[in-house]
């Protein structure tokens, strides 16, 4: 994000090179504020050795949230990682669920503190 330049080079004959003028790259996502989260509780699969949790986001605002919706899990400590996160557009009052997968080799309690974003990072 911010001011960037793009440099290109011909890797075949090395005869063409170029640099763009400065361009401004703006974020294409916004933080969602009107939402609620429901998490089912963690379930461990002995085969995959991952914890799974169904996380449901509900649009509690008055306007449609445009997708894709990204859920960012806050406060994941070292060793605890989130394996996936996706979402789609949500009308007011509508809900969508995603199966979150966690690698949690230390078997710590998983914090469900979530920031939601509309758009692409």
């Amino acid at each position, binding site marked *: 994000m911010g001011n960037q330049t793009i440099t290109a080079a011909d890797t075949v004959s090395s005869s063409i090179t170029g640099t763009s003028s400065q361009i401004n790259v703006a974020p294409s996502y916004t933080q969602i504020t009107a939402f609620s989260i429901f998490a089912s*509780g963690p379930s461990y*699969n002995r085969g995959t050795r991952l914890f799974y949790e169904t996380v449901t986001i509900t649009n509690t605002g008055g306007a449609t949230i445009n997708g894709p919706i990204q859920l960012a899990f806050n406060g994941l400590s070292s060793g605890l990682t989130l394996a996936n996160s996706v979402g789609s557009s949500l009308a007011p009052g509508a809900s969508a669920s995603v199966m979150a997968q966690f690698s949690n080799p230390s*078997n710590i*309690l998983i914090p*469900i503190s979530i920031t939601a974003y509309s758009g692409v990072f």
Partner: protein
Amino acid sequence: MWGAKRMRIFVAGCFVLAFLAPAAARAGSVFFFATDTSSLSGSGYIDLQYNANAGAGASTATITDFLTNGSLGGAATISLVGDASGNLASTVTILNGALDSSGYNDYNEAITFGTFATFEVALSNPVGGTANSAFILSYYASDDATPVFSTDLTGASALLTVEPNGTVLVQTYRSASGSYDTTLGSTPEPSSALTLLGGLVLLAICAARVRWRCDR
């Protein structure tokens, strides 16, 4: 003498009392699990978990009355992780780990499959807290890694989500054949049953009063 409006309010109140019993199951209820295991033969594993998210209140799952026409593997095949203790032949107790920050609390035992397996689970109301916990039943094949009776990523045949206010949400999962091999039932906690009974008695009194007034 009661006016018509006062009588309507009284009757409406009786209906409210009659239906005070919660529509959703609640912690404190006893949940009856029944799994049709007839599609499998040989041995595998039964797996029971009770896991909390960070911030959940402390709660206990007590598993009793396990019954199968197969057989359990016995003490030598029992694996305990976190806050799980006991054995299925008598009683298994699994704490959700909220007290000691144990995120994985698991009871695992070998089982030779018959045609059914049943047991009961009593979940205590969470003490405080703001996050959910989950009680999970899974069955695994003889490698103790391949879920059977479930095609869900979790490997679960059934999952109970216990909310901070004691509400319990029930979810069962399809097996590879497309059928739901595990079914659940619940009996309300004594206080809920008494509330329902009290409401029904009041409703009966209301009906009798209305009939008496109409007859006069």
